[in-house]
C-alpha cells in the first residue's frame, strides 16, 4: 500500500536575526531532517517533550509554516511545490485540531459560523443545505442543535474541543493533524474526546497524525509511534513494540519516567540528568549523547541515522545497527 503522507528530509529552520542590520546570525533547527510515512487509515503518534519540534512538524506538513527544505508527498504528489490554487485543493484533504480550545475558536463567531466556514470557503454547500450539514456535524461530535447559535465562551473546554473537531471534519478530510487535542482537558473529559476521535476515525475513514507528550494517550489511540528529540525522529515502531521492547535509550527513559496511576507499578526508573539541549547550536554526533546513560565515544562524533532494525522498528542509535537486508 502506498503511504497517504510521505515526508522526506523535511527541515524547518527559523532564522535568528541580530545586530544593527538584522543580519541572519543563526537558525533554530526546529525540524531537522525528518523522514516519516503514514499509511491510510493509520493513527500515527508523534511523541516528544517541549522543544522537540513535534508541533512545528505538524504545522509544516500542513504548510501552515513553509518548509525550509525537503519534500512532503500527499497521495504521491509533492505539496511543497504546489501553487496557491493547487494547495487549496489539498487543504480540503488535510485539517488540524489545535491544542488550546480557548484560542482556537474565534470568540466573535457563533458555532454555526465556525463549523460552516470551510464549507463556504470551498463552496461545498449552499443556503439551507449548509445549516443542515452543520447540524449533522455538530450531532456527530456530540453537541446539540441549540448549541449552534451560541458563542464559544459559553462552552466548557471539552465542548470547545468538540467544536474544533467538527470544524476540522467538515470537509471530509483524509488526514487530520491533532496537536495535543486533549492536553488542556481534564481526564474524565479527555476520555470522552479520545473515544470520540476513535469513533470518528472508524466512521469517516480518517488518518490521524496525533501529536502528544502523553504516552498513555498515545498508547490508547495510536497504531504506530514516532519519538522526536531535538528536531529529529529517534525511533519509530508499532505501538506495542515501543511500549514492550523500546530500543532507543531516550524512549526507555521516557517510558520509565511516565507516571502510571497504579501504586503497584514499579519500574527501574531511569531519571535523565540535565535538560533537552538547545535547538540553535546542535552538538556534533548524536543529539541525545550528552544525557544518554549508554553513550560511548562514537556517539559524540557520528550522528546515527534512522535505520530499520527489523520488524518495521526504526531506531537512530549506534547501539542498534541496521538489520542487513537479506
Amino acid at each position, binding site marked *: 500500500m502506498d503511504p497517504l503522507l510521505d515526508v522526506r528530509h523535511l527541515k524547518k529552520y527559523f532564522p535568528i536575526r541580530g545586530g544593527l542590520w538584522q543580519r541572519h546570525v543563526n537558525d533554530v533547527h526546529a525540524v531537522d531532517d525528518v523522514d516519516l510515512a503514514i499509511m491510510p487509515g493509520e493513527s500515527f503518534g508523534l511523541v516528544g*517533550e517541549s522543544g522537540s519540534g513535534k508541533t512545528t512538524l505538524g504545522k509544516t506538513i500542513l504548510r501552515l509554516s513553509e518548509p525550509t527544505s525537503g519534500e512532503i508527498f500527499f497521495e504521491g504528489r509533492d505539496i511543497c511545490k504546489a501553487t496557491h490554487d493547487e494547495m487549496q485543493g489539498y487543504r480540503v484533504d488535510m485539517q488540524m485540531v489545535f491544542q488550546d480550545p480557548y484560542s482556537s475558536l474565534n470568540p466573535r463567531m457563533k458555532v454555526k459560523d465556525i463549523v460552516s466556514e470551510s464549507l463556504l470557503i470551498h463552496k461545498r454547500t449552499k443556503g439551507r443545505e449548509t445549516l443542515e450539514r452543520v447540524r449533522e456535524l455538530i450531532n456527530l461530535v456530540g453537541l446539540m442543535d441549540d448549541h449552534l447559535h451560541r458563542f464559544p465562551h459559553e462552552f466548557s*473546554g471539552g465542548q470547545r474541543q468538540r467544536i474544533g473537531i467538527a470544524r476540522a471534519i467538515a470537509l471530509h478530510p483524509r488526514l487530520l493533524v491533532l496537536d495535543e487535542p486533549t492536553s488542556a482537558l481534564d*481526564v474524565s473529559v479527555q*476520555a470522552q474526546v479520545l473515544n470520540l476521535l*476513535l469513533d470518528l476515525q472508524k466512521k469517516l475513514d480518517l488518518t490521524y497524525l496525533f501529536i502528544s507528550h502523553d504516552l498513555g494517550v498515545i498508547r490508547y489511540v495510536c497504531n504506530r509511534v514516532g519519538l522526536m528529540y531535538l528536531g529529529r525522529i529517534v525511533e519509530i515502531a508499532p505501538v506495542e513494540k515501543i511500549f514492550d521492547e523500546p530500543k532507543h535509550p531516550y524512549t526507555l527513559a*521516557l517510558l520509565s519516567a511516565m507516571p502510571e496511576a497504579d501504586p503497584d507499578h514499579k519500574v527501574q526508573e531511569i531519571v535523565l540528568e540535565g535538560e533537552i539541549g538547545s535547538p540553535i547550536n546542535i552538538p556534533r554526533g548524536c543529539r541525545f549523547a550528552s544525557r544518554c546513560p549508554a553513550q560511548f565515544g562514537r556517539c559524540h562524533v557520528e550522528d546515527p541515522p534512522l535505520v530499520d532494525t527489523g520488524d518495521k522498528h526504526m531506531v537512530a542509535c549506534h547501539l542498534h545497527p541496521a538489520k542487513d537486508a537479506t
Partner: protein
Amino acid sequence: MLSSLLPSEGPLVKIRDLRLNFNTFDGVSKVLAGVNLTVEKGDVLGLVGETGCGKTMTALSIPRLIPCPPGEIVGGEILFEGEDVLAKSEDEMRELRASRIAMIFQDPTTNLNPVFTIEEQMIDAILCRMGEQSALGLTPFSRWQGSVREKRTEARHKAVEMLKRVGISQVEDRIGSYPHEFSGGMRQRVLIAMAMAGQPHLLIADEPTTALDVSIQAQILRLVKELVDEFHLSVLLITHNLGVVAKICNKVAVMYAGRVVETGTIREIFKAPKHPYTVGLLNAIPTRASRRGELQGIPGSIPNLLSPPAGCRFHPRCAHAMPQCAADPAPGMIPLTRTHQVVCHLFD
C-alpha cells in the same frame, strides 16, 4: 510513616466543614461546600480533582491566602498544629507563613521576580523565613551596616547550601544569574530551595510539575521525595495527575465540586475505590490495560457552582444515583476503615 513512631499528637492540619463563597457578578459561587481534610505529620497527601473542584482554594485557605473579598469564608474551621488559623491576626499569619508553611506553584516563571538575581531573591526569602526582616536592607544605607552585612552573608551561605541541596550544579557560578537564564525545571528547583529554607512543617505544592516535561517532572518528584525523608516534611500535593500521586504520595483525597468525596491511603483509593466519582476518574485514565475504544469517561461536565445540583453534587453524572441522592445533601464522611472514608449514600 513517621507519624506512627511519634507519641500520638494531633494532626498537622485539620480542616472541618470549611465553606467558602465567592461573590461574583453572576451571583454567589459556592466554591467550597463543607470540606473535611486531615493531614497527619509525615503524610504526603495528594489532593486530586478536576478543574474548578476547589483543590487549590482548599490549600490556599490553610495559610489564609484566599483573596477576601471576593472570597468569603462562611463556615468551618482550620486547625494548623492545633491552632485555629481563622482566629489569628494578620501578623500572626505572616509569622506562620514565614516559618511553618511553605508553598510552591505550577508556574515557576511568574513566581520569580525577573529583575532580581536568584542570589538576591534567595537571600531575601531566607531572611524572611528566619524572621530577620531588619536585614532586608529596606531602609537607606542599611546594607552598609555591619550587622546587616553579617546576616546577609550568613543567609547567602545558607542559600548556596540550599541550592546545592536541590540539585543545582555550579551554584557559585550561577547564583548571580537572573531567572530567565534558568530553565523551567531549574526555576522550580530554586523555588523549592526558597520554600525549604525555613524548614517548614508543611509544604503545599500546587501542581508543581504540570508545566514541566515528563523527564524533568521525574527529577522534581524524586527531589520532593528526598526532602520529605530528610526534613520530616509533610506535603499537601495538589494535582490532577493521578500518576504523579501514585508515584510519591501515601494518602489521597479526591475532591469534586467543592467537597472531598473520598480519602484513604494510596492503595485503598487506587485498588479499592468506593465513590463512583473516584471509580470514574480512575477508569478515565488510559493505562497499560485499557483497550482501544473502551476507556470510560464520566458523562456530562462539572456543575456550575453558582447553582450547584441539590443533594449530592455528583448525582447528575453518577451511574448509581438513587432518588435520595438528589434529595438529601451528601452524608458526612463515612468511615470504611481507619484511614478510608467516603461521602456517598451508597455506603450509608
